[in-house]
């Protein structure tokens, strides 16, 4: 139960002073009587009694005194008008003083537990100061009227009579049940003596009863020193233009001296001590002897009526009346547990429908009086009954009841009752409900819906304060914002800003969370990350900034606006918002940016000195640090680095293998005086277009550990302006040039944001996350930042290499083109040694010297047979002096149709001992396709040759007619020659030419068997899992057979040999990588030879004489001859080896796959070496009259094996099994005589077997009735290994014998 009621719930006593009393007080420089008496409120130690005569001690008993005339006048004003005036008045008071309050609070600092809220106190005092009687409630209705006169009146008694007989000018709804009291002030300077005054008092007592008092005062003429007294409660000033009906001239506003203009002046009373004592005694006596007893009596009487009404019959009656159609409008039933959606009902106890206003009901007065007197038990009972009848009471009950869940409901009901009137003044009920209904949160929000006025805003602010105390900081923040929004509309700026700041503070306050510290890490967020609910912070800061700007704190505004430019997060991304509020979010960044621009421009024109002091920093980054690159003249450092790394590695390996010690100077260098570009990646995180000006770089020299400035010798470009669209990313190259060889660190980029604000951003990117120690794993630790570094080399060693020809040359497939390489020494030292690395790309030095005489039709070249890439090539130069340049012819051969990039690295040095430097050349060219070349081979039926090779050349050219000039085959074992002549003619566009070659074994070369042995050994160690010995395969002889009408092109030329090897190498490597994916490409050269001895490579030389183009196309992959599984024994050995158990199935599976791949590779091919061909006369005429025809048919058996002899058995079947006598099918040839032939054929030899046929009648005879069984055997490690084959005639085609009778 609350011990102290708000002072507005205290007896209201009106005073009607006589004019002479007013004069008297004025002359003694005292305020009017109500103000004097008010100074003595509240009274200490007053005891009241309840209806059951229980004493209730009041430690303080408040009283309210006011001038009767004033009240009468105020009552006549329209209530709504007064409400509006009151709101304006409060707003005005607050807005006048809030600037100082806010200043004070900011100066003194906030006491967190009990923060000062002067605006709230002010609001409360203003609200409590409402003393005009209201129609709906009786609190402000006068409880007593004191008629006060002084003895200075000419006739005091008459004056008293006049006062008593004065008609009260209250409207009819004011309750006139009040105590009448007479006060006679007897000053010392009164014309009446004390005795006379006593007589007067007695007369008055006789006439007007005991409620009278004679107050003797000294009132000296010279005012005594002022005595401080409690401040008066501010009161709404009277209507500014009093209308003429006011009978009496109004007293000057008693509040004027203390009202808003002089807020800090203490309220004082210039009274003597004795006078004060007397007045106090009077006040006390008035209350204790007259007012309280009178009120108690009223309560007693009214309670009697009340309880009698509450007896059963009347209640029954009243409820029946309510149930069965009462004349009065049925009030909406309202339950205490009403849901939020219950409709608000307006309590109108004293507003009957006929419009004639009645004073508040007696029951209500009873409730009020008992509340005032502190008889809460009775009061609660009466209020409850009032509430049940829907006549109010909800507003007071929360004050009287102890806290319980129903309190918020009472309060909300009270509020919803009020709500139906749009411009109700914030009456006591609201305030009191707010004060005590702290428990309910939702109330406040609903309370202020209808008023966008300062008072409601302050209510919200107070609600926020209370919520803060309850630790509900988010709610508090929300209310502060709401309050600020409302206050802003009223134009009370200082307080608005204060509330906004408060809200921001609360939003930024990290609420305590019971989360594990590792939770943050697992979610990848830092706990003090404030970008959540970023929209809210922006929503707070933006109005704050605008307010700062309008109130003149431009520097502050600039800072706030700048802080707003955070770049909206995902939540605000347009696609996240629903389609209709896209515009809202996208515009916010733009609005912030515009505001910043305006504020900054204003600041820079008015107070430029403040800009430096403000220390403005942009909260967003534009440079994407990880994506900034350095680009050199010869391409970027980071671009396709692998290519260059490979080339460098090739060079290092090569040089090491030659025993060289000299290192290669790091190529990631620019030379002095050479331009370097830093590709700044700029990204605009904002959803608005903006411009950055004067973009430049900050470059430092790294000397030892510290960085020194480089202004002297480094020129950095400055880019005037870059305009970035909303969320645009763009690369901006900034060039720099150093005049000194050193190591530069590009620490940061600078720019002017919006061409106003100079800003610097670091370009070093964060190192990788460390996981080395346990501590690092638990707490994220990162390696040191990676700076953007560039080394500048002295220009002493600088070689510029370029092609004289244009880049993007268009070549034709296979074309060989002579280009000119231009080498110029741009350094300071001469260059004596240059190596070209990367010649695998089909480039070689051109030399005219071996533009030779006549080339024989066949040449033998010895190949290294190695898959090792081409070693770097030393360029044939002697010395290039500084400033000199040199042209060197080179040949480019374009084998594959595509767009190619030629990457060449040139390594050079000054003399034989110095370190090497390198320079690079990248050149692109395009190659058009020209031919499809397909080659097939089949065993020849002719005696003289083993195979016929069929080369199909199909032109893919759209327009050119290509002349085929030469066919060259390269093979270690086969010699090829033309079958159809050596003039190949031309190939028109999209046409095809077929060329036939014959192939015969060639046994003069060496290296074939050695190659196979080498391969077998190396693959054996692969299968065994042993280390592969890094050895080179044995070299092999290649027979190059040229077929040409003209003197053939030689393949002995170094360039030619290089191209042949290089292309063969590419083909073989590719092939191996396809077939043996498990063998690392590094080990190819030591396992596989370049040439399979059985292979036949074909080069087709072509010319387009019209365009002066020539070249050759190569075809690889053709193999001739029978082979016998050379790896067989090795594979068997591997298969039969003890199986090593492996823990992983996968390993075993892979081992099997390796084995399978080797088994199925081209090296391990195995086939029937014998080819059978029937040499028969096609048509034979025979005179059958002479008897049957006896013929012997020649069966040629050719052993295609180059190495192994075979034994073969040819069986002739006399009667073929398929004897379906079809008229169209040929007859089987009837063999007779010896039907089984056995023979052995040495390698590459032919045997002819002649079985006989007996033909008795003419016809077509199929010779297919044979079966050839072949047996190959060769020794393998003391055992003979055998392989058998069985051959039958092909089912589709066959040899036929046609015999016709010569007689016909």
């Amino acid at each position, binding site marked *: 139960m609350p011990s102290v009621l708000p002072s507005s719930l205290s007896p209201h006593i009106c005073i009607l002073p006589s004019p002479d009393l007013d004069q008297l007080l004025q002359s003694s420089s005292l305020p009017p009587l109500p103000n004097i008496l008010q100074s003595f409120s509240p009274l200490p130690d007053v005891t009241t009694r309840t209806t059951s005569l229980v004493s209730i001690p009041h430690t303080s008993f408040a009283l309210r005194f006011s001038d009767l005339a004033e009240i009468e006048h105020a009552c006549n004003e329209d209530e709504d008008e007064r409400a509006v005036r009151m709101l304006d008045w409060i707003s005005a008071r607050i807005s006048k003083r809030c600037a100082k309050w806010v200043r004070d609070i900011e100066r003194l600092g906030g006491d967190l537990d009990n923060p000062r809220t002067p605006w709230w106190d002010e609001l409360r005092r203003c609200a409590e100061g409402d003393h005009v009687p209201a129609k709906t409630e009786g609190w402000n209705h006068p409880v007593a009227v004191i008629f006060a006169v002084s003895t200075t009146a000419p006739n005091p008694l008459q004056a008293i009579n006049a006062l008593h007989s004065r008609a009260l000018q209250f409207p009819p709804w004011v309750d006139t049940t009040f105590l009448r009291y007479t006060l006679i002030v007897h000053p010392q300077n009164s014309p009446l003596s004390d005795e006379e005054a006593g007589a007067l008092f007695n007369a008055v007592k006789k006439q007007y009863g005991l409620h009278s008092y004679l107050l003797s005062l000294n009132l000296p003429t010279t005012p005594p020193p002022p005595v401080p007294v409690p401040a008066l409660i501010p009161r709404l000033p009277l209507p500014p233009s009093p209308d003429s009906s006011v009978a009496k001239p109004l007293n000057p506003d008693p509040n004027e001296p203390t009202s808003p203009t002089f807020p800090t002046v203490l309220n004082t009373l210039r009274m003597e001590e004795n006078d004060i004592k007397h007045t106090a005694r009077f006040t006390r006596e008035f209350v204790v002897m007259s007012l309280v007893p009178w009120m108690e009596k009223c309560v007693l009487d009214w309670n009697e009526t009340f309880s009698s009404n509450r007896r059963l019959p009347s209640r029954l009656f009243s409820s029946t009346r309510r149930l069965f159609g009462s004349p009065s409008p049925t009030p909406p039933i309202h339950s205490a547990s009403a849901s939020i959606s219950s409709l608000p009902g307006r309590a109108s106890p004293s507003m009957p429908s006929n419009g004639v206003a009645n004073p508040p009901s007696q029951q209500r007065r009873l409730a009020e009086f008992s509340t005032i007197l502190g008889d809460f038990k009775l009061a609660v009972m009466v209020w409850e009954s009032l509430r049940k009848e829907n006549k109010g009471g909800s507003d007071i009950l929360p004050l009287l009841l102890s806290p319980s869940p129903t309190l918020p409901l009472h309060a909300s009901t009270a509020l919803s009752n009020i709500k139906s009137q749009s411009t109700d003044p914030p009456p006591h009920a609201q305030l009191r409900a707010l004060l005590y209904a702290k428990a309910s949160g939702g109330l406040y929000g609903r309370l202020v819906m209808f008023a966008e006025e300062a008072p409601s805003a302050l209510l919200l602010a107070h609600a926020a304060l209370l919520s803060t105390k309850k630790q509900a900081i988010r709610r508090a923040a929300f209310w502060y914002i709401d309050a600020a929004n409302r206050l802003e509309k009223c134009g009370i700026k200082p307080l608005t800003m204060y509330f906004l700041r408060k809200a921001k503070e609360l939003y930024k306050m990290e609420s305590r969370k019971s989360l594990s510290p590792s939770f943050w890490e697992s*979610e990848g967020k830092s706990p003090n990350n404030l970008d959540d609910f970023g929209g809210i912070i922006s929503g707070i800061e933006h109005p704050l900034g605008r307010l700062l700007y309008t109130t003149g704190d431009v520097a502050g505004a600039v800072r706030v606006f700048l802080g707003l430019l955070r770049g909206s997060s995902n939540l605000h991304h347009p696609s*996240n918002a629903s389609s209709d509020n896209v515009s809202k979010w996208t515009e916010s960044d733009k609005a912030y940016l515009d505001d910043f621009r305006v504020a900054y421009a204003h600041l820079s024109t008015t107070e430029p000195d403040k800009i430096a002091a403000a220390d403005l920093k942009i909260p967003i980054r534009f440079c994407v640090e990880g994506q900034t690159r350095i680009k050199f003249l010869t391409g970027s450092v980071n671009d396709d680095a692998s290519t260059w790394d490979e080339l460098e590695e090739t060079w290092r390996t090569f040089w090491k293998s030659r025993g060289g010690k000299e290192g290669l100077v790091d190529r990631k260098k620019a030379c002095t005086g050479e331009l370097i570009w830093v590709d700044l990646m700029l990204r605009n995180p904002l959803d608005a277009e903006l411009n950055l000006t004067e973009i430049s770089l900050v470059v430092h020299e790294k000397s030892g550990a510290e960085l020194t400035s480089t202004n002297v010798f480094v020129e950095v470009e400055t880019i005037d302006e870059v305009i970035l669209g909303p969320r645009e990313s763009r690369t901006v190259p900034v060039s720099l040039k150093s005049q000194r060889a050193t190591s530069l660190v590009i620490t940061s980029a600078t720019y002017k944001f919006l061409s106003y604000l100079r800003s610097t951003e670091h370009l070093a990117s964060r190192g990788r996350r460390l996981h080395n120690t346990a501590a690092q794993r638990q707490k994220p630790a990162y390696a040191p930042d990676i700076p953007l570094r560039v080394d500048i080399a002295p220009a002493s060693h600088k070689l510029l290499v370029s092609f004289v020809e244009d880049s993007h040359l268009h070549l034709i497939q296979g074309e060989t083109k002579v280009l000119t390489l231009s080498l110029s020494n741009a350094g300071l030292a001469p260059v004596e040694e240059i190596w070209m690395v990367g010649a695998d790309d089909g480039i070689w030095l051109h030399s005219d010297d071996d533009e030779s005489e006549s080339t024989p039709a066949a040449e033998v070249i010895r190949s290294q047979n190695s898959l090792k890439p081409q070693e770097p090539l030393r360029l044939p130069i002697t010395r290039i002096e500084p400033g000199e340049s040199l042209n060197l012819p080179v040949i480019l051969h374009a084998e594959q149709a595509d767009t190619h990039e030629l990457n060449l690295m040139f390594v050079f040095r000054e003399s034989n001992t110095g370190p090497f430097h390198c320079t690079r050349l990248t050149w692109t060219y395009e190659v058009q396709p020209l031919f499809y070349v397909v080659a097939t081979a089949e065993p020849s039926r002719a005696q003289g040759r083993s195979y016929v090779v069929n080369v199909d050349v199909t032109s893919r050219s759209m327009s050119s007619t290509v002349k085929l000039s030469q066919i060259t085959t390269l093979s270690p074992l086969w010699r090829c020659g033309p079958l159809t002549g050596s003039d190949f003619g031309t190939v028109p566009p999209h046409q095809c030419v077929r060329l036939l070659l014959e192939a015969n074994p060639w046994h003069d070369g060496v290296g074939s068997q050695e190659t196979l042995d080498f391969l077998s050994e190396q693959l054996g160690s692969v299968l065994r899992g042993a280390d592969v010995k890094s050895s080179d395969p044995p070299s092999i002889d290649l027979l190059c057979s040229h077929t040409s009408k003209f003197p053939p092109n030689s393949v002995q030329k170094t360039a030619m040999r290089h191209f042949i090897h290089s292309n063969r190498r590419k083909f073989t490597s590719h092939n191996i990588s396809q077939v043996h994916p498990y063998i690392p490409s590094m080990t190819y050269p030591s396992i596989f030879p370049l040439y399979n001895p059985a292979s036949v490579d074909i080069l087709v030389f072509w010319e387009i004489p019209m365009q002066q183009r020539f070249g050759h196309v190569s075809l690889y992959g053709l193999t001739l001859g029978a082979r016998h599984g050379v790896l067989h024994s090795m594979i068997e050995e591997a298969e039969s080896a003890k199986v090593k158990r492996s823990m992983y199935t996968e390993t075993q599976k892979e081992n099997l796959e390796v084995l399978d791949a080797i088994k199925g590779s081209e090296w391990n091919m195995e086939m029937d070496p014998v080819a059978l061909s029937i040499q028969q006369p096609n048509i034979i005429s025979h005179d059958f009259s002479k008897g049957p025809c006896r013929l012997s048919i020649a069966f040629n058996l050719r052993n295609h094996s180059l190495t192994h002899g075979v034994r073969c058995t040819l069986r002739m079947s006399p009667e073929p099994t398929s004897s379906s006598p079809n008229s169209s099918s040929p007859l089987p040839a009837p063999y007779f005589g010896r039907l089984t032939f056995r023979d052995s054929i040495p390698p590459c030899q032919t045997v002819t077997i002649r079985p006989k046929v007996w033909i008795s009648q003419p016809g077509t005879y199929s010779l297919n009735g044979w079966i050839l069984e072949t047996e190959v055997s060769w020794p393998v490690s003391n055992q003979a290994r055998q392989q058998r084959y069985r051959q039958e005639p092909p089912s589709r085609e066959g040899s036929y014998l046609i015999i016709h009778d010569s007689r016909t």
Partner: protein
Amino acid sequence: MPANLTLNAVAFISPQNHPIFIRTFSKQNEHAIKYHYVAHTSLDVIEERVNASGKQAGECYLGLLYSMEDVVVYGYVTPLKVKIVLAFALSDAIVRDIEVTMIFKALHMAYYSATSNPFLKLEASNGANNEKSPYPSVASPKWKAFRNRVDEISRVVGSAANSQTSYS
């Protein structure tokens, strides 16, 4: 089906009280930020409720959190502490808890299936901080499925309300 409910906004808030996703369905643009406030303020109430209810987990639905001006706010906490906040337009009709729970469950499922996407972490992996939370990427512009699903739930709720009014 839920009837008489007008969904004004849906908010998903991560266990660390970061907003994952706030989507408004009301027509007025200027109210978009209001629901940020609503979501933020409801965190207070949710914390109160969760603390008050003690440790007996299992009940995700928190019921009516508070009502404010023209909206009523309901809360839901998933077992993994993701908070879902719904704001309905204030109306005179009776709101049945079972209907609100149904909407919450649908939203929870939508969120669950969105986070189950194994490719969510893909986008985050290129940054320096590659152990990022999946939560923001659920709502990132790249993952539209979640947004569409929430929209669909809202549409179903809205159409049910409309059909109810048209037939009554």
